[in-house]
């Protein structure tokens, strides 16, 4: 019963919010959608410019699998107030993650590991924060840690353009722009890391940057 309610809440969020906003108000152009994982466990790593990024990512997966697609989000931001936390956990389906290290022995990625073990698809924004709109920042290494724990799980880089123009940090209403989404080739720890976290993150970062460079975009200052 509880599980069915959870699935229903996730569906409502996607059908009543993510779809109307991303597919009608904005409009998405997705390249290589077939490179997205059909089933978990998998990690998808988009760049991060806007609150709309999570909505946009959720529209890329079929509805019947949406309950198994889990955005990873900062606990210090989304669990700040009770109402936002309740909404984020139940309707958006986030897996909260502590951005600041707490107790020395606590594993900040425990929630993510459990989800991967359950066969879920994680959406992780490796930049860690939205930052300046439409500018990519250095990636945090959490994805590499997870990949090393699950060495055969595919890590799929995604580059999105337009959402930061539409609703940058601080903006309250989205302004419609078409969104370009580029899905890259899957990487795995076994195939791409050579046992080195830094090397893995460098390759992931490079792959995301190259995806974004494939297309000329109008300037945005």
């Amino acid at each position, binding site marked *: 019963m509880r599980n069915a309610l959870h699935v229903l809440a996730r569906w409502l969020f996607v059908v009543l919010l993510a779809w109307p906003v991303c597919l009608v108000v904005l409009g998405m152009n997705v390249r290589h959608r077939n490179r997205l994982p059909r089933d978990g466990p998998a990690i998808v790593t988009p760049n991060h410019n806007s609150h709309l990024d999570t909505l946009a990512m959720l529209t890329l997966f079929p509805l019947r699998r949406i309950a198994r697609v889990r955005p990873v989000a900062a606990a210090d931001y989304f669990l700040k107030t009770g109402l936002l936390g309740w909404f984020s956990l139940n309707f958006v389906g986030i897996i909260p993650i502590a951005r600041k290290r707490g107790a020395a022995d606590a594993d900040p990625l425990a929630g993510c590991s459990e989800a991967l073990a359950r066969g879920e698809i994680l959406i992780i924004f490796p930049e860690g924060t939205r930052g300046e709109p439409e500018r990519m920042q250095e990636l945090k290494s959490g994805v590499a840690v997870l990949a090393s724990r699950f060495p055969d799980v595919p890590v799929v880089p995604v580059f999105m353009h337009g959402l930061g*123009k539409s609703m940058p940090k601080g903006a309250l209403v989205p302004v*419609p722009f*078409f969104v370009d989404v580029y899905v890259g080739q899957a990487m795995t720890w076994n195939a791409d890391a050579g046992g080195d976290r830094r090397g893995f993150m460098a390759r992931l970062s490079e792959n995301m940057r190259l995806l974004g460079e494939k297309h000329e975009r109008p300037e945005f200052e």
Partner: protein
Amino acid sequence: MSSANGLSAALVAAPAARQGIVPVPAGLPQPVFPEAVAWAFTGCYALLILVTLAIAVGRRLRPGRDFTELRLRVKAFWFILVLATLALGFNRTFSIVCIAFVSFVAFKEYLSMIPTRRADHRVLFWAYLAIPAQYVLAGVGWYGLFIIFIPVFWFLALPMRMVLIGHTQGFLRAVGMLQFGLMTCVFSLSHMAFLLALPDAGNPNGGGVALLFYLVFLTQFNDVAQYVAGKLVGRRRIVPQVHAGKTAEGLVAGVGVTIGFAVALAPWLTPLTLPEAVAAGLLIGFGGFLGDITIAAIKRDLGVTEGDALTPGHGGILGRVDSLTFTAPAFFHFVYFLHY
């Protein structure tokens, strides 16, 4: 209400254009558009079925030839025709909402391809607000405000909002580009919606819907006629730097065919006399050409090549309505001046 009452009421109340030759008996679903428009749509479907069959036959006869472009174009027309039938088939309000949505997507496509400034987030939001306002004005038929709302009020409101942000670098470029998009994608196209708000009395042959059909059909047909004529007999390029496919021969032959159709359809769908129909054909023929090359010039300027993947799947709405940005206001004011 008894059925006899319903029948007489339908016969008395129906405007002349809806009666047609054989009135639909009461109790059956009444036609949603004037009979002339229903026939016109039927004609379009027949035409498209013929073309589709012709291509199928052509592929059998000449397996070596590449029909891909032709097939894609025909597919797009099927799509447009079905959508147009749905958009006009319910009621006037729904039709106007559909045209407003076309404006919205075209404007969004325009904004997505021009350079924008981060500081102008709110200004862009204000620009979008003009879309519902303009189409409400069209819907209620408030001509006086409809015709000045964007060219006067929003023309002043946007720079006002922009200057209050206080970011002067690139100010003129930003405000100018925004105004151009609003004028073409919203103001120009909204004239299609105002055709639907015109009083039925001005056009005994089907009212505003028939005029809208006449405008859109001739504009689309003119595009195809110029394209085909250009391929068949085109030699001299008119504006090679802007649009390589436009030739003098294609233009003249295309406009000629458009005038022919304008004259043939005018007695069925419009109040236009013969010389007026010739003029309407000229207006739509040349207007469509100018709209087409103007949007092409903008895309060239911005470095967006035709068929670019900027909006794949969305099929480039701007490319579909480029001719209408000129023909819609031109044809509207032509008819409005002569018959309303």
